[in-house]
């Protein structure tokens, strides 16, 4: 295995494009090193992008949105007060990944590129309408986070492509987001179900709502019908019931060592209702 | 004479009685006498059993003294963690 500490994404792409064997990009490494250890992947080239200028930066754009560098860790994300105020659901999703130790290293980009349907930070990013900048042998492009996952462990990135930055839209007024997951313990588990809700209100009425579910399908996914169930409502019982039904209807889970399909479907509804209530309270400025 | 209580599985190998009575002053003599009287017991005793003397699970000492006034039970060998 060759290790490359690159100084630019162009260099990273160059090495990746000329590599003949298995290549892995290294940011936090909390997934790659586990796969290495288990013998799941034996890279010939590992390209460390943490020395690229700007990868640790979190910056507010002129439009009020956010750019997050590819190597920003969970700890760094959680320490950014203004970002946490704008997008608490996105941040809490990332902060649920792994232990305190893992938080010192793990990144949004890595969580996304790992391609897990249970990735905790991805539903929040999708619900927020986040995009990513991608660079690769054929040039740079911007993709929606929702377009990245392809199937368990796989993404729609092309060979040699690397995510350089995550972009969050401007929060705007009267918005709120949240993420909840279900795990059997209190910490250290992979999500059995995850649910993010992002919404905006006008007075008491929800004007926009996006719902994303994790671990109930081959990829994390947006559930437009669940969002639609909320729009126009004041989060009354009828809207919540419709949300629950829509969320459960969208689930196509498997039964595995972490939970049964029936359980996942059931709990997806429970989490959707709870997450919507939190997002709504946040939009109203009632809770942090 | 000492009286040795048996678990059900052993009773089948020793003529069906709940207990056997043998002449012995030690656990070793007790085992030997039991095997002499009921050869079917040999593989079980050789494989190892726990001897409970007056309520205490002893650990296979053939030289442990046994007296007529002792309460003696054989139980399946017990291991600890």
């Amino acid at each position: 295995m060759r290790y490359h500490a690159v100084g630019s994404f162009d260099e990273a792409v160059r090495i990746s494009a000329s590599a003949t064997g298995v290549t892995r990009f290294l940011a936090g490494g909390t997934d790659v090193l586990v796969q290495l250890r288990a013998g799941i992947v034996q890279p010939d080239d590992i390209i460390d992008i943490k020395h690229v200028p700007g990868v640790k930066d979190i910056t507010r754009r002129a439009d009020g949105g956010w750019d997050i560098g590819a190597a920003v860790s969970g700890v760094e994300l959680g320490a950014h007060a203004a970002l946490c105020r704008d997008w608490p659901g996105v941040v809490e999703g990332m902060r649920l990944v792994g232990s305190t130790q893992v938080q010192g290293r793990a990144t949004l980009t890595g969580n996304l590129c790992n391609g897990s349907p249970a990735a905790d930070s991805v539903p929040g990013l999708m619900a927020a309408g986040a995009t990513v900048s991608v660079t690769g042998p054929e040039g740079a492009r911007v993709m929606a986070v929702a377009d990245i996952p392809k199937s368990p462990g796989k993404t729609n990135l092309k060979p040699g492509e690397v995510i350089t930055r995550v972009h969050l839209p401007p929060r705007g007024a009267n918005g709120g987001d949240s993420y909840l997951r279900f795990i059997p313990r209190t910490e250290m588990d992979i999500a059995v179900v995850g649910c993010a809700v992002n919404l905006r209100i006008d007075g008491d009425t929800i004007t926009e709502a996006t719902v994303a579910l994790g671990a109930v399908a081959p990829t994390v996914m947006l559930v437009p019908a669940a969002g639609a169930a909320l729009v126009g409502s004041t989060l009354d019982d009828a809207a919540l019931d419709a949300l629950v039904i829509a969320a459960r209807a969208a689930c196509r889970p498997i039964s595995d060592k972490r939970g049964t399909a029936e359980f996942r479907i059931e709990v997806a509804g429970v989490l959707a209702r709870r997450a919507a209530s939190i997002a709504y309270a946040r939009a109203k400025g009632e809770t942090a | 004479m000492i009286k040795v209580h048996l678990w059900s599985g052993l009773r089948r190998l020793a003529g069906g009685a709940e207990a056997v009575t043998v002449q012995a002053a030690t656990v070793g003599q007790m085992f030997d006498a039991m095997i002499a009287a009921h050869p079917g017991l040999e593989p079980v005793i050789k494989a190892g059993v726990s001897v409970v003397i007056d309520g205490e699970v002893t650990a296979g000492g053939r030289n442990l003294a046994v007296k007529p006034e002792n309460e003696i039970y054989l139980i399946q060998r017990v291991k600890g963690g």
Partner: protein
Amino acid sequence: MPKDELKAGFRLVGTRPNRPDGLDKVTGRARYGADIVAANMLHAAVVRSPYAHARIKKIDASRALALEGVKAVVTRADFPTGLTGEDWNLQENTIAGDTALYDGHAVAAVAATSALVAQDAARLIEVEYEVLPHVTDVDAAMAPDAPVIRAGNADHSVPEGMHPNVVRYIDFGHGDIEAGFAAADLVREGTYKTEATHQGYIEPHACLGQLGADGRGEMWVCTQGHWYIRRMCAAVLGIEAANLRVTPSEIGGGFGGKTTIFMEPLALALSRKAGGRPVKLVMSRAEVLRATGPTASASMDVKIGMKKDGTITAGQVNFRMQGGAFFGMSPIAEALPCAFACYDIPNLMHEGYEVLANRPKAAAYRAPGSPMAAFAVESLLDEMCRELSLDPLQVRLKNAAKEGTKSSYGPTYNRIGLVETLEATMAHPNLSAPLGPNQGRGVAAGFWFNHGGETSVSLQIGEDGTVGVSVGTPDIGGSRASIALMVAETLGIEYEAVRVNVVETGSLGVNEPTHGSRATFASGKAAVEAAESAIKQMCARAAAEWGIDPEAVEWVDGAARPAGENAGKFPPLTIGEIGAKMGGTGGPISGHHESVPGGVGASFGVHVVDVEVDPETGKSTVLRYLVVQDAGRAIHPAYVEGQYQGGAAQGIGWALNEEYIYGADGRLQNPMFLDYRIPVASDLPMIDTVIVEVPNPGHPYGVRGVGETGIAPPLAAVANAVAAASGARLRTLPLSPPKVLAAIKAGQ
């Protein structure tokens, strides 16, 4: 019984000094299994079967051997043939012969100049398998159509006509079981299941072995018992025990799982083949979970008869347990006598079957068999108490075994402390803590025999009056401290003046491992005997100095003194003064003691747990936990509490989330801590403890042993609390949220 009263007369026993190995363990200096290195050392890696059951048709190591840095490969062909019984079991489990018997079964091993090269080489060893049908579930393994794992393993006890996978049958009881049920007002029965769980020690198995062509070797290893390692390695390799010197490292947890060998002979065999170079072999976590010894999985029928007033008239159990693909590994013989050990019941019937399955060779796990048995019996008792509107603790007290009770397994109990333990539980404030919505309280009792076992200790008086104690029981949870306390108490010297060393196999007679809750009981008792023997010699030295009869000398407060006026008037000779002169008064003074100590005292515990269940997700949260247990006497109460808390935590994990999950292909699906879910810090509340002290008359300081009983009650206590909180009565562990939620919904 007030504790202070019992403590009266003890200067050190019952205090909480710092443990002697504490400084090493908080600074990273303490050396555990994988920390040991040797010059010119090689590193090993093991090739393991990816199939639950497969014939090994061919092993080709040529590509591995061609790799630079590879020094040796071993397969079963490098081990002697003709072993029988448990020795054959050990060898077969160390490295598969014709057939791989479970997912993770070792097939070959390789030694190389670095760990990375060894791992690369292991991947290059090509094994050709013929996959065979497999079975992992205990009930399925007994069914007529189950694949036969190894024919001819059943012993004399198995009734005619049973499947060859059934290898042991046990039955015992007393009274008239049918009359007992006829006398009851309520008879209930249920079937209960527990999955296999792993001890989950955080330190993976590790050893460093060296073996020369002359058959002489050394081993450094993390183990609960290094004489067992020596005997087992010698048997598996066909070498002489005395020619293998085994030194225990510090041990990062064992809980019974490190009382046997798993891969140690591989390191020695590789060393022998690599010209005697030392070989280090360290397991990964996945190897630990796939290929070391978890406990059994169990399927259990229970039937109990009870009168309206709570009197138990009859109890009947039928247990099936699998302990892997090897005879004698399930704790069926321990589970059965534990089932009703807490109670005085006139009519009892126990039956049990041991069954082979394509799973790893089970090892002991903390009170082997008792937690499963208690889960079944204490759950059904709880259901019956609810049905009859009886207080579950009162019912347990009403039926509690006491001194003179004929135990469920036959013999009459000596002085035991269950009644005192139940009374202390009832008096605890946790019993009156208010419960909110979706919260419930569960109680359960549990039992363990405790154990003496082969023990050898030596004690040396130093030239300055300090004392060294050599013991053969590795210190897992503070036994150096408890043994030092008892020795210092006996000798009348300061705790700090005693150093307890865990020594290698060349230094003492044979010792059984630290198992059966025996280190403080057995090594402690032997150390006290050794101290008494040294005291006699020191009194004799003083007598010679004073020119009086040795019988006229007594030992008080760390010094020899004339016993009474008639003995003469001499100033006391302290242990330091005697030690300083001993070279000129007859030579070194040491005491030693070798025995299989008698006087083992059983111990009982009662647990009370409050749980909240989320009715929408089935998730259980432990709110409050209480352990009450009879210690006999707590030598170092902080480490006694630690044993209670640790046992409870393991039991909570077993109850809620821990399980071996096998796929349809017979492969273990969760060989990582990520999915083998042991409790993390945020899963647990503080764990309250009450140490009951009903001294064991068989030990000089009243010790019963405290390591194991604490894991017996939690499984049932948690299940009973979940039932109380949610209405969901689950008879299959673990109480994972999908199961609890399904049960809640089924009950609605």
